[in-house]
């Protein structure tokens, strides 16, 4: 009996130690991070994730002939192909759906709920910008099914539905930002907003900029002038007025001393992403230096000239950006900043205008540094992989190829060129010319802002021009024959679009690609949707000659064009068509959402030539539903 008593006592003691079941099991909580945060705590991360744009620029810049690359993956984009089974070119997909994704949704929803209109407005502006970017890159997207809990597959929406939605979000942003917001934010917004530090007026301008960019991409649609042009002009006038309004994402920098390498710009020397894998393209050098060549229309070859040891080819009669004369106003100083040269390796002549003008620039081909004239250097100005250590090095980089340079989202210059193009389309050429001049001027200011000159006599990186010298040369150029003294009779759409291309170089390759696509790469375009035997030839694309009045991008020839160093064939999968969209991120859609992708029209998302399917924005009319 005693035994039993002892046993039960022990048993009793044990059962006391067993606490209530629910309480005992309630340990599935993260004690190292909150499960709910206030909206503003998402903001810095949402903004900083725009670094992903620079990941995809590795595809975009080669595609727009801004850069060449020796990367075996990204050179596929230069050739209008893609890397099958790979996520390359899919980083913005990741940015919009995941990195901003639910963070941005939460920030917007929480702010609206709490009537924090400023934060809600900023959220919508960001959302509009990001989705505009995403649809321009990939065209059709899961929009309505995005972020809906519990779905296993996500249906696509066509771009025709996505475009108005982008503008609706932008208008929503403006509406919220213009509402009276009595909340005392303290520094909650200003210290987390790495774009405008809480400046609401600038955010409103930014939201208008998003609308302008959205509408500008429709400029070649049949109904542009009747449907969109006026709205574009109104929004542009409410948008950026000077380069001080430019939307840029500031980064902490810190180079090797940063606690996270991603505090540095993707293009800085510390992260080594440009290194010597990406370099300026031959076409960029031609445009920036006024050396677009003249091709023999019979052979497609260039004419060799004997007496020029720098540029041994006959040049096209009409250059759009500048020319090779050393006269004041004929030299565009942006070449000294945006492009790289190996000249003046020890930074002796940063202030010597003659020396600066005499520098030689070389561009590479699509997949190699060897170009038609010389060898393209790295963006830091050496024929070497970048380095931030050693006796000779590239320091923290230069201009926007720098550890602590901001990421560029959009600029005043870009908006002015959009405006100029809209006026041009409406045949209001005076207004167009004014907007054009304002655009070039704004880009000069933009370019100058980030100049980071090297140390005289020291070979440790930096820009090879000072801000002062740049300013002087910029004023000369603006007053010269290519801008303020450009005659109305010479003024052409090419001036607007190519100056825009220069202003976008190379951070804005996304928008440059939009422009190239809407003008169909200046191909002798049949007007039909690409498909074999439907105006597109598997062996060669038929490109307009530079002498053709209607050719917008002078000097632009795609890899399979009829001119020298372009006589390469597209991949057979292209069926002769150039690339019009980037395929959706492989490990999101091709692995896990195939049935939805497959149902896309007129070319199925799983077709080998889906990247050639023309998006709605670039197609003059309504998309065909069936392509033979």
């Amino acid at each position, binding site marked *: 009996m005693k*035994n*039993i008593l*002892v*046993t039960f006592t*022990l*048993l009793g003691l*044990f059962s006391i130690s067993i606490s209530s*079941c629910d309480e*005992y*099991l*309630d*340990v*599935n909580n*993260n004690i*190292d*991070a*909150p*499960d709910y*945060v206030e909206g503003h*705590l*998402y903001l*810095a*991360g949402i*903004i*900083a*994730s725009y670094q992903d744009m620079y990941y995809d620029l590795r595809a975009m810049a080669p595609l727009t002939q801004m850069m060449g690359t020796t990367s075996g993956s990204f050179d596929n984009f230069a050739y209008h192909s893609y890397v*099958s*089974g790979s996520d390359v070119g899919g980083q913005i*997909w990741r940015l919009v*759906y*995941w990195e901003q*994704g*639910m*963070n941005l949704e939460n920030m917007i929803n929480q702010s609206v709920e709490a009537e924090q209109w400023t934060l809600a407005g900023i959220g919508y502006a960001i959302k509009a910008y990001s989705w505009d970017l995403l649809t321009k890159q990939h065209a059709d997207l*899961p929009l309505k099914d995005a972020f809906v*809990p519990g779905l*296993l*597959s*996500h249906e696509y929406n066509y771009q025709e539905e996505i475009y108005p939605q982008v503008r609706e979000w932008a208008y929503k942003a403006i509406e919220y930002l213009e509402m009276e917001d009595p909340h005392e934010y303290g520094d909650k917004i200003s210290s987390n907003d790495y774009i405008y530090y809480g400046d609401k007026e600038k955010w409103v301008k930014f939201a208008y900029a998003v609308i302008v960019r959205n509408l500008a991409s429709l400029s070649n649609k049949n109904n542009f002038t009747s449907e969109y042009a006026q709205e574009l002009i109104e929004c542009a006038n409410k948008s950026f007025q000077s380069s001080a309004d430019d939307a840029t994402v*500031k*980064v902490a920098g*810190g180079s*090797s*001393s940063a*606690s996270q*390498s*991603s*505090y540095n710009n993707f293009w800085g020397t510390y992260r080594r992403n440009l290194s010597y894998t990406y370099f300026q393209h031959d076409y960029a050098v031609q445009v920036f230096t006024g050396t677009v060549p003249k091709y023999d229309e019979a052979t497609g070859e260039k004419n060799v000239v004997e007496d020029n040891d720098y540029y041994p080819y006959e040049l096209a009669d009409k250059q759009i950006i500048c020319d090779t004369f050393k006269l004041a106003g004929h030299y565009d100083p942006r070449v000294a900043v945006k492009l790289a040269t190996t000249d003046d390796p020890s930074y002796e002549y940063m202030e010597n205008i003659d020396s600066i003008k005499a520098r030689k620039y070389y561009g590479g081909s699509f997949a190699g540094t060897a170009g038609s004239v010389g060898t393209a250097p790295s963006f830091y100005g050496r024929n070497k992989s970048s*380095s931030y250590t*050693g006796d000779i090095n590239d320091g923290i980089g230069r201009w926007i190829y720098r550890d602590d340079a901001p990421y560029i989202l959009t600029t005043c210059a870009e908006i002015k060129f959009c405006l100029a193009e809209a006026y041009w389309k409406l045949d209001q050429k005076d207004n167009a010319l004014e907007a054009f001049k304002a655009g070039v001027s704004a880009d000069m200011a933009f370019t100058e802002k980030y100049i980071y000159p090297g140390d005289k006599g020291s070979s440790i990186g930096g820009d090879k021009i000072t801000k002062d010298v740049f300013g002087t040369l910029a004023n000369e150029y603006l007053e010269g024959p290519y801008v303020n003294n450009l005659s109305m009779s010479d003024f052409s759409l090419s001036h607007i679009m190519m100056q825009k291309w220069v202003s976008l170089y190379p951070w804005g390759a996304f928008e440059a690609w939009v422009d190239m696509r809407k003008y169909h790469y200046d191909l002798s375009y049949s007007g039909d949707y690409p498909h074999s035997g439907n105006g597109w030839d598997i062996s060669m694309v038929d490109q307009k000659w530079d002498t053709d009045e209607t050719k917008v991008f002078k000097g632009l020839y795609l890899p399979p064009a009829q001119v020298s160093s372009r006589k390469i064939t597209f991949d057979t999968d292209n069926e002769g068509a150039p690339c019009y969209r980037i395929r959706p*991120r492989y*490990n*999101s*859609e091709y*692995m*896990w*959402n195939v*049935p*939805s992708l497959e149902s896309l029209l007129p070319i199925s998302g799983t077709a*080998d030539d889906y990247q050639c399917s023309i998006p709605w924005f670039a197609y003059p009319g309504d998309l065909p539903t069936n392509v033979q």
Partner: protein
Amino acid sequence: MKKTILLMCLALIGIIITPSRASAQSKAITGHVMDAENQEPLPGVSIVIKGTTEGTMTTPEGFFKLEASPGQTLQFSFIGYATQEIVVNESNTINVNLKTDVQAVDEIMVTAEFGMKRVSRSIGSSVQNIKAKDITDSGRESFISALQGRVAGLNVSSSGGTPGSSTTVVLRSITSISGNNQPLYVVDGIPMNNSTFNPGNLADGGASFSVRNLDFASRGNDFNPEDIESMTVLKGAAAAALYGSDASNGAIIITTKKGTAGRARVSYSNSFKWDKAYGYPDLQTKYANGARGTTNYYYSGRYGGLYPQGMELYNNIESVLRTGFSSRQNVSIEGGSDKASLRASASFLDQEGVVKTTDYSRMNVSLSGKAKLNDWIRFEGSMQFVSTENTKVPRGTSGPLYMAMRWPIVDDMSNYMDEDGSHMRMPNYYTDTDLLNPLFGMYKNKLYDESDRFISSFVATISPIKDAFLRAQVGWDVGTSTYETSIHPYYYNDNGGVGRYNLAKSNFSYPTLNLLTGYNKTIKEKFYISAQFGYHQIENGVSRLATYGSNYAVIDFQSINNVDPSTVASTKRTTTRRVQALSGQVELAYNNMAFVTLRARNDWSSTLPVANNSYFYPAIEGAFIATELPFLKDNKSVSYLKLRGSVAQVGKDAGPLEIDPQLEATELTGGGYQYGYTGPNKNLRPEMTTSYEIGFEGRFANDRINTDFTYFWTHCEDQIVKGFRLSYATGFVLNNMNVGTFDTWGWEGHIDADIIQTNSGLSWNVGINASHTKSEVVYLPENVTEYYNAYTWNSGNIRNGIMVGHPVTTLTGRAYSRNDAGQILINPTTGLPIIDETWSVIGDREPKLRFGFTTRFNYKGFSLSALLAGRYKATVVNGTKRTMMQRGTSWESVDLRESGPVVFDGVLRDGNENTDTPTKNNIGVTYDVYGSSIYTGQDEDWLEKDVNYLRLQELRLSYRIPSKLLRRTFISRAIIHIAGNDLATWTNYSGIDAVGNTVSAAAGGTGGEGYDVWSIPNPRGYSIGLNVTF
């Protein structure tokens, strides 16, 4: 347990009856009793003069002494052994070899869940005992590695042959696509932590290391093999059902030594082992660095011109290797009475691996004991303290072998320091600056971990009334580990790095409580019923603090204090999983012949949504002893035949923090929070595994042949797949979802036979075990064509892809494009084969057969034993050769470039490929005009199929010094041995290691077995050692 108690009782009886009267003619007889099989002395053997009550017992060393007269018969009996009778003759010495009584083995008790014993014959599923001696004699530093080849259906996959490598054990087959597939390790009834640290948890977020290139030790290897008294492998879910979720992959039950009654005994053993690496590929010595036939040391590929005559060439792979040496020393002391016994032991292991700088050391100190407080309270306890230290090298294509392969052979890599005495030296001739000298890395970097740990358990058993018990078990496995990585600033292209340092501290605490009560009753002699009921509580708490910094102030100093303070980033992660459970078991037996056991458990887990956190799962097993049937009983040719079967379910919960999305601090400018990769799933349900098995055990030919065979089938439904992907439109990249369903099935069996067995002590036993497993994925959501484990994507595009209709061990890759007739399509422009855009099935890693072969030969004091293990018809990914082709360092690449134009077998993709008359390819491709990509080949080229593999894992010769020689010393027993491990491998595989594993055990899921990407195989080991008892 019962065995020991019985033994003690017998000892007691012996003491009482020893002072017997000696008869007039009697004389003193001395002798020694040993196990006939292994020549081990047998303590506690009862010796009785037949027909009297007089007798004695053997001492702990097996000696006895008694008075008897010639003509009298001595009866030697001992539980588990056949009783032997010997008539006293003129001799004063009688030495006896007792043979195992197989009949008695029937009654052998198997340690089942919670340290409880079950009669072996009543169990309806496959259970296998491993002798502790086999483990300690294996020569392995880790008891886990020692299991390979010994147990049918147990596969040990080691991540490599360097000291402290992690090990993955799979019983029968994989049961989880993405989660844990390892069995539960249980020490004295208490689960033991067997986790492996994932380098992705370092504070640099996996920027430096992953499960592919760095492998930290599995915590299970901490355990001291010398402390194991017995080990039982519970293979199926049924056998381990009462342990619940954690044992859904089976369990390995370890009972530790607790000391034996009798005079205090001190034992000492040691072993010294020398290891020698072998099996590495031969590098070509014909063509120098360069491309397209032109020597150019800017290239790391070797497609250049011929090496000039007389140029000195170096074997750089050799320079990272050395002769490994390890020493083990164990000392234990034990003693006690029938009421209480105690054992203390200490063990020291020091191991230096065959790859320079690698080492592992382990110290185990343990104290254990048991006590019978009174007639109804018993107590047992054990504590083990373990301290380990391990220095390692990176693996795979970050490892020293791969990097040595890339180093130009015109340069002596072993000379790794620059003349200035601080920088990494660049190879001669080589003009690029991107090569890293692995030796510099090995000596100047640091990859290190250390761990201190307590494993303890305490059990009190109370039997207040007859046939009933109450048992309380408390266990606590607690420890702390430190993981450290340091990358030297000069271990970088052109010596241009800044130094990177990671430090992580991981504390774990696994307290466990089991309360059990049971009742047994025999009804009317033939019926027996036993019932048991339990309450269980498990907690797995892990808390990890990791910090990272870079920019070393002092170049050669490795510490978090030596980094630039502004670069320091730290993370903390704490997870707790708790499970409460109730279990019950009812066992019914009839006449020791038919048994039915019903078992069930209900878990409540903290890791699942509250609405789904309770799950119930039952099991039933039955056993029938056919040889108990009257017409089969006492049949010498079929002495024992048992038929068994079971059906069991086991529910499994999720991991901690897997229901809700987690906010994480951003690593971008401005900080703040952002969501991690994984989305929410508020509807997560427990997954359910149902397993069926049938089998038999039999002994034939007078017990000389022993067999066991099992067929099993497992249905894994509603798998919680971690890291399952969907469209990013979900807002997340990964999800944890109940999505996968698959079946596995197969068989396992073993047979062993005493080929020779004589009374003179000569015996020869041979055993074979084999297993075969198949699996098929039966369901994945419609939008998913393939689920893959990203970490297995480790050679080209080959990965472990899970596709409906295919095994879970499927290899997928980018196959050659084929026409409808299956012919390879050739690009009409280049003459090269075309590759599919998407992944398709290209192979299956699971071999047709896994097998082991054991043999033991005993004569007098000599014992010779061997263990071989192998695989039949496996598919292995030869990632090693692929990289050698890519770099042009293999002799095959030389053959190819010298072969002239190659015409790939296939048809041109010219539009006619699917007609009746496809154009046969006749385009010759000259390898020399292509860069390395053509040599690198495609995924299908690197699957070696039908690989057969046999390894001589152990060969051991031991000699027991005759007791006569020790009679006058203080040593009561001494054994010396020489042994070899992994002495030879026979295989048709052409890479390094056909059993290579490309990922650390930390990866979990389907693992990286069958991928050889610069594996470091087990070296050849030679050891000598001594084992003495005082």
